[in-house]
């Protein structure tokens, strides 16, 4: 009975603490904006399977990888003049104008004369009602690709951050708590990881192993978890270790394991959570960089979208094909920025010296 009451009290206290933290978090405006951005992308990631299951979107048309759709367009066949400027065209960039096609381009289609209407399929198609963000050069829906990319980003970011921070929190706390040889070993191990240049290392790994999203998340998590973050978490745990409550726990006869897991670890946890939110940003960026360089075996992601728009030569075509360039790049930037802002909001909550009052 007594024990039950105690548990209820603890639950109540925990709920109170959570409420207070939420109130503090709400005070930081930018943190809330970050949260909204993250929720927006989460919504996008969940919306795509929903649209496919309910049949609102046909898989053949809207599938981000194998879907195909074109927009039929009728163009006026014109002949571009040899010398500029003429009455109609200022310079050679103006011909053919919108809705027109140069007759010289149609040498494959016999019997087409100047002045005819010519039916064709445009790819990449500009945004329209059926394709909110247009299609890419293979006729695939960009909006659907963005959704797929946000699924990849969430899975990868959250998985690798959780794994990495899990490893580094446990190892860092152990290193700080036991000290001595264990500490020296763990620190030298993180030295070893820090010594390897990260991007070339990932290149090598991608050369002899086919990296899928899960594999990459594990690799990034392990490298991040064994590397520099152990050092940071250790320095935090060192400050917790010398607090009076650890000594009193030892005097009352707590075993090493008990003190480690129920006194030191919970006090390191806020920093670890913070670290996790920040490392999501890093994981999303690394995935995009690797896909941007064409080294991952992933069907679709934001990095691959940028990679495709670059290899197809659209990135230097300026704003004419903006729907191929802007959405993917901005999505990476905004989701990473959203997680960063959430992390900053949490920083205000956990670090009382950063608060306004």
């Amino acid at each position, binding site marked *: 009975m007594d024990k039950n009451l105690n548990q209820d009290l603890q639950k109540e206290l925990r709920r109170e603490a959570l409420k207070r933290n939420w109130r503090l978090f709400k005070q930081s405006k930018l943190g809330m904006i970050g949260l909204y951005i993250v929720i927006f992308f989460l919504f996008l990631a969940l919306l795509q399977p929903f649209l496919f299951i309910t049949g609102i979107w046909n898989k053949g048309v809207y599938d981000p990888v194998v879907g195909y759709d074109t927009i039929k367009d009728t163009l006026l066949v014109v002949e571009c003049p040899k010398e500029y400027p003429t009455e109609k065209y200022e310079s050679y960039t103006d011909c053919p104008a919108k809705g027109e096609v140069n007759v010289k381009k149609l040498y494959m289609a016999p019997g087409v004369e100047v002045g005819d209407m010519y039916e064709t399929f445009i790819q990449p198609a500009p945004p329209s009602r059926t394709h909110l963000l247009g299609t890419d050069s293979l006729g695939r829906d960009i909006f659907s690709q963005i959704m797929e990319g946000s699924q990849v980003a969430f899975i990868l970011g959250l998985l690798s951050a959780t794994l990495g921070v899990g490893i580094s929190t446990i190892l860092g706390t152990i290193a700080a708590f036991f000290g001595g*040889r264990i500490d020296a070993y763990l620190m*030298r191990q993180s030295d070893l990881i820090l010594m390897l240049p990260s991007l070339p290392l990932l290149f090598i790994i991608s050369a002899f192993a086919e990296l899928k999203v899960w594999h990459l998340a594990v690799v990034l998590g392990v490298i991040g978890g064994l590397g520099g973050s152990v050092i940071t978490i250790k320095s935090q745990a060192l400050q917790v270790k010398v607090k009076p409550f650890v000594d009193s726990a030892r005097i009352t006869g707590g075993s090493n394991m008990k003190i480690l897991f129920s006194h030191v670890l919970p006090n390191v946890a806020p920093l670890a959570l913070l670290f996790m939110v920040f490392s999501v940003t890093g994981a999303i960026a690394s995935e995009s960089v690797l896909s941007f360089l064409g080294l991952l075996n992933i069907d679709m992601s934001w990095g691959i979208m*940028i990679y495709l728009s670059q290899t197809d030569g659209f990135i230097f075509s300026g704003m004419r094909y903006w729907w191929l360039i802007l959405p993917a790049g901005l999505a990476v*930037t905004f989701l990473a*920025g959203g997680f*960063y802002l959430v992390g900053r909001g949490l920083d205000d909550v956990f670090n009382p010296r*950063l608060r*306004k009052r």
Partner: protein
Amino acid sequence: MLEYIIRRTFQMTIVFFLFLIFSYLLFNAIPGNAFSSLLLNPNLPPDAYQRVLEIYGLDKPLFERTQMYIVNFFKGDFGYSYKYFPKTPIELIAERLPRTLMLFSIVNIVAFYTGFFIGKVLAWRRGSKAETWITVTSVFSYTVFYPWFALMMLWVFGYKLGWLPIGKFLFPEKWYDAPFDSDVVFTSMIKFTVVVSVIQFIAYLVTRGIESLSLRRNLRFGSLLAIFIGSYFYWNNGEALIQKPYASDIAYHMILPVMVVTVVAFAGTALLTRTTMMEVLKEDYILTARAKGISQKRIRDRHAARTALLPVVTSFIFTIVTIIDGSVLTEQIFSWPGMGQLLLQSVLEEDIPVAMATFSFVGVFALIAHLLADVSYSYLDPRIRIKSQG
């Protein structure tokens, strides 16, 4: 302390040894080798591939090769590059390293100063509208997808406006009848930059102690003016006059990468400075300074910013360490022939001697920096004590 450093050095040697073995095995785990492309050439006799492997010793078993490499490494023999044959990895690094260091030290210094200044102002003007907007901008440039941003900048400045060149280190057409190597010009540029920054730094140190703000500002401006006049005379006399057009060509190619990387890099410093500065502003001695009636600007610059500088400088040291690692992507995008490109190329082409040499160069750098950071922590902050072990 000395005992600690000796123990650390001993541990570091073991770590470095393991690092060498690990990376050598890692490079050999990549399928194929540097000469696999010979197999695709139909004009070569069938035994040519085998003979090339024998010449380079690649036909020996892996264990024997690892052993040989490590023994030779500690003798100071790094072998020859597979791709640029008569050159040794050391020669290649000596050629590429200055380019990377030049580019990224300019970037880092500019980014550090702007970042520190902006962070200082951000923390000071907390809650104002300007703070929100500057924060949003710096968060954007901190988290922007860097290759994408760099390509967009290349498009805007290199293609649309046409002000700056798209990538590369120099215009080859300009250098056809050049009387000297690009490295010669580059070395003299580096010397010039180092001398200028040393003079400026000394001027800064000398004027730091001066109390009056206007005198200090005038003196600093004067030193800047002196540097400008001095550099005008330097570049218009003797050897430097012949080198001037070529040096300006290289400098012209440096503008865009420096600009883009600075925009991305300053934000990290700015956001970190903001956080540490806010923590410092809560300290009691700031309240004391306010109570004494010291001017706001003086409190900001002399009392708060000085203390907030410490963690920022430490993180700056770590940034310098990761220069080569971080240069990989930048140099790839701007086709800047530096250390990062050498590292990436040697890994992709499986040029194992060069890749091992560059990897160990980066590794030694990181190891020493970690040791220095640990030692300097305890030196700068007496609250952190290093025990005899760990």
